[in-house]
């Protein structure tokens, strides 16, 4: 179980997060939705310690990881896939994946790279290409695959659909859905593309100006027309 | 307006602070030019000199001032010259002419020296000759053999040379080589300034047709002379004549070995001290060869000599220097070297000039004294000085020697000559001068 409680953060005088609370359950996809600037990315960055929290806590399976150094989070089983397809462009596909497996959650077995290539056959075909040669969709596969190499229990995904063709988005979301079941993952999916996100999510959290304005099962949110118009843009 | 005012205040503050700071550290009133000579009191004479205490020319040369200072202390303890004690200011110029200009400025304006004595180096001293002569400051016994100190007393009336100039040294070397090694293919290794130029001028009088290659170096520049030695090698040079400072003797030897260039070597007196060069060579070669073995690397090299050195411990002059050094060296552990002997020999000449000048000492009188009496000064030099109203050139001759086991063995008697096409003649007369028993010139 992954829980965020009363989490707040600020950039200088500007409050970016203001008392955000939600929980994400194991084996489920929790979508964090909201307009541009609502604080979605800041939420993930604060959880990872890239942005310092001013208040509140983050718990992973009952352990407080609020002030844990960013570098140590992978050993707790937390994987953060950053926005903008954070591949390391100068490294090859295999090197990116190897890097992902270097710092695993404590006590876990190394993940064979071949397992990732089974999940993403496309990556297997391009294993020796440097990452900057990959297409957008391939990069997204690579960062997810790289995160999986650390055998995480919680996967934080930041805007995986950004800039991808709808067909590719659907493909990636399908894969994600499958992974949640086979790997017993807790997924926190930050998305601006609310419609696609809700289509695979179990639960949804809507942020506006750094505050939670709604938290409900995905189907419920998708059905709330007013909410959709006000915050989700569809 | 307020900005203007503030700006003005800022600027004025900066200036005032600067001048105040400067005043407390360096503030001395300008010297009174009238009456007694600057730098001379009834009990003291203050002289100054620039030496390369650091930089590529420092090995060896930096020891010269300690020779001066030891001899002056010896003289001072015996009551000084006409009741005046000699004080010497030594400033480092790192063999960089621009620094020479700066430190000379300091010595003239801040230390207020009476005279420059033994300022070292051709390119360095050249930078301040004009200045010293313009200001009427005696510039005595320059530690360099360039012609310019003495060949034109009209433009530089205050400047005097001391050691044999490079042109006569080049002539003697040239004649020796032409007579004894007429088939040698000669390469010249020259410092790229008047030092190398004067030496080349002398050598070419006899060797013009034998010289097949000329290579130059810049002091303070690269220390790798492989390209120069490669050039000698490819041109078939089998005798190198070097007008260079001691470090460059060592570096040229290393580079020659590095490119497999084998040759006879003939270094000008300036760059040939076996003890120093041998020590440098030993420290640069494989492992830890003791300095004595480094000295062996110098065996068979030829050079010239114009004052007795440490390899002649029985010479009366060297005995005197040893006695002075043993009692007056600042650090007892340091040995007497040829460079210290050089310094003491120069100091001897300066004391001689002061003695001859008499009690009434002015900047003009010392110059006059040396012009009138300098040619008859008896000292350690193997040949007499050429000082007169028409020439301020120093010692007039050298002998050619070969280095064996760190000592020099004469190959010729003392050969005396002058610049231009003056003939080269044997003259051992000055070589038999002996020091007075007090060790202080009368």
């Amino acid at each position, binding site marked *: 179980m992954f829980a965020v409680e009363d989490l707040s953060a600020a950039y200088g005088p500007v409050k970016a997060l203001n008392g955000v609370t939600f929980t994400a359950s194991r084996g489920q996809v929790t979508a964090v939705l909201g307009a541009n600037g609502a604080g979605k990315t800041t939420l993930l960055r604060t959880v990872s310690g*890239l942005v310092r929290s001013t208040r509140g806590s983050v718990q992973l399976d009952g352990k407080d990881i609020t002030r844990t150094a960013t570098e140590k989070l*992978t050993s707790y089983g937390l994987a953060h896939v950053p926005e903008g397809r*954070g591949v390391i462009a100068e490294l090859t596909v295999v090197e990116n994946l190897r890097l992902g497996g270097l710092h695993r959650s404590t006590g876990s077995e190394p993940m064979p790279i071949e397992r990732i290539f089974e999940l993403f056959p496309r990556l297997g075909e391009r294993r020796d290409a440097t990452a900057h040669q990959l297409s957008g969709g391939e990069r997204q596969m690579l960062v997810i695959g790289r995160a999986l190499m650390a055998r995480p229990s919680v996967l934080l995904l930041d805007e995986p659909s950004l800039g991808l063709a709808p067909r590719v988005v659907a493909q990636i979301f399908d894969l994600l859905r499958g992974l949640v079941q086979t790997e017993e993952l807790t997924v926190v999916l930050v998305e601006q593309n609310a419609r696609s996100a809700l289509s695979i999510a179990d639960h949804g959290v809507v942020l506006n100006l750094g505050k939670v304005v709604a938290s409900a099962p995905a189907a419920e949110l998708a059905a709330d027309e007013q909410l959709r118009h006000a915050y989700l843009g569809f | 307006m307020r900005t203007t005012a503030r700006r003005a205040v800022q600027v004025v503050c900066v200036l005032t602070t600067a001048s105040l700071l400067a005043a407390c550290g360096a503030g001395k009133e300008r010297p009174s030019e009238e009456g007694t000579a600057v730098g001379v009191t009834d009990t003291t004479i203050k002289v100054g000199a620039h030496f390369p205490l650091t930089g590529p020319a420092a090995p060896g040369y930096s020891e010269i001032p300690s020779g001066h200072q030891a001899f002056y202390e010896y003289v001072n303890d015996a009551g000084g010259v006409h009741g005046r004690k000699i004080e010497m200011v030594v400033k480092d110029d790192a063999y960089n002419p621009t620094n020479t200009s700066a430190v000379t400025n300091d010595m003239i304006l801040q230390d207020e020296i009476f005279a420059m004595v033994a300022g070292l180096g051709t390119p360095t001293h050249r930078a301040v000759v004009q200045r010293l002569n313009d200001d009427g400051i005696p510039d005595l016994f320059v530690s360099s053999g360039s012609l310019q100190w003495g060949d034109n007393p009209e433009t530089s009336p205050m400047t005097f040379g001391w050691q044999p100039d490079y042109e006569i040294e080049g002539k003697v070397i040239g004649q020796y080589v032409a007579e004894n090694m007429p088939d040698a293919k000669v390469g010249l290794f020259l410092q790229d300034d008047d030092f190398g130029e004067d030496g080349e001028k002398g050598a070419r009088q006899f060797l013009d047709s034998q010289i097949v290659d000329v290579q130059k170096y810049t002091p303070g520049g690269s220390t790798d002379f492989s*390209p120069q030695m490669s050039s000698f090698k490819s041109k078939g040079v089998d005798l190198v004549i070097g007008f260079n400072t001691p470090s460059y003797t060592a570096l040229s030897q290393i580079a020659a070995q590095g490119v*497999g260039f084998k040759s006879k070597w003939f270094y000008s007196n300036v760059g040939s001290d076996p003890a120093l060069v041998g020590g440098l060579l030993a420290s640069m070669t494989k492992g830890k060869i003791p300095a004595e073995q480094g000295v062996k690397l110098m065996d068979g090299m030829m050079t010239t000599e114009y004052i007795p050195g440490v390899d002649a411990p029985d010479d009366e002059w060297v005995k005197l220097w040893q006695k002075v050094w043993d009692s007056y060296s600042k650090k007892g552990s340091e040995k007497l070297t040829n460079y210290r002997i050089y310094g003491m020999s120069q100091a001897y000449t300066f004391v001689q000039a002061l003695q001859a000048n008499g009690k009434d000492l002015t900047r003009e009188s010392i110059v006059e004294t040396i012009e009138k009496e300098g040619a008859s000064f008896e000292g350690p030099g193997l040949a007499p000085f050429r000082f007169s109203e028409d020439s301020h050139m120093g010692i007039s001759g050298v002998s050619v020697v070969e280095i064996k086991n760190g000592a020099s063995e004469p190959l010729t008697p003392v050969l005396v000559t002058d610049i231009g096409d003056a003939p080269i003649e044997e003259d051992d007369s000055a070589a038999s001068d002996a020091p007075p028993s007090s060790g202080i010139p009368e």
Partner: protein
Amino acid sequence: MQQFLDTTLGGLVLGAVYAAFALALCLIWRSTRIVNFAQAAMAMVTTYIALTLINADVPYWVAFVAAIAAGFGLGAVIERVIIRPVEGKAELNAVILTLGLFMVLHGLTAITFGVQHRGFPAPVSTNAIAVGDSSIGITPFGILTIVVVAVVMAGLVVLFRFTDLGLRMRAAAFNGEVSRLLGVRVGRMLTLGWALAAAVGAVAGMLIAGGDLVNPAFMDPFVIYGFIAAVLGGLDSPLGSVIGGLILGLSLSYVTGYIGEHLAPLVALGILMVVLLVRPSGLFAAAAARRV
């Protein structure tokens, strides 16, 4: 012909040293996007440490290792204490900072060890190798120089290509934030990068000093020549640095041998400007064009 051969061999040895030095600059550039103008002074300091040991009768190779260790420590300390605050800040700051460091190290060495020229021994002969009656313009020490640089180069290739540590270091250099998210201790990797670079610089210093005179300014030409060699190779590429070093070494050796030593810096400047203006990403850069 003989002279050409000798000059070429001399150029290769010189180039090997430039290559080692450029490699050090490249390592630092890769890890922190800083050109370390103090690299030469750092190498000079470690060489003096080795000289002090050698003069105290410590065997040459022990002193050699000590110089490398000293370089490693010096690099790490400098990164941690001095460079860390300007990482990722305006480029000008790092440039000025490393230039200041250059002057400080220079002066402190001069004060501590003195400014006089001192002979520095070579571990093997510096006499030309004889072939029959004649000899060729390379010495055992020259060959040793080339071998040592090749070993260092190979070691770095192995480290970066085939080890996890090397992978971490590269990742940290290319993208610090992503690397942190993947569990890489980026700060440590940057420190390690500087330490390794300074160790490589220390090796270069020992190779330059061998069989020569040293003084606190003896590495000064490398401030510019090392930089030019690294830029020739593209700053980012270790292999490029080595090739850049060799090209520069050969060029300067020919210039010195056939025209005159004083023109060497001018030719170097010409090479640098041509590369920067015509092929800004260096002769061998694989990555996209860089902004110069």
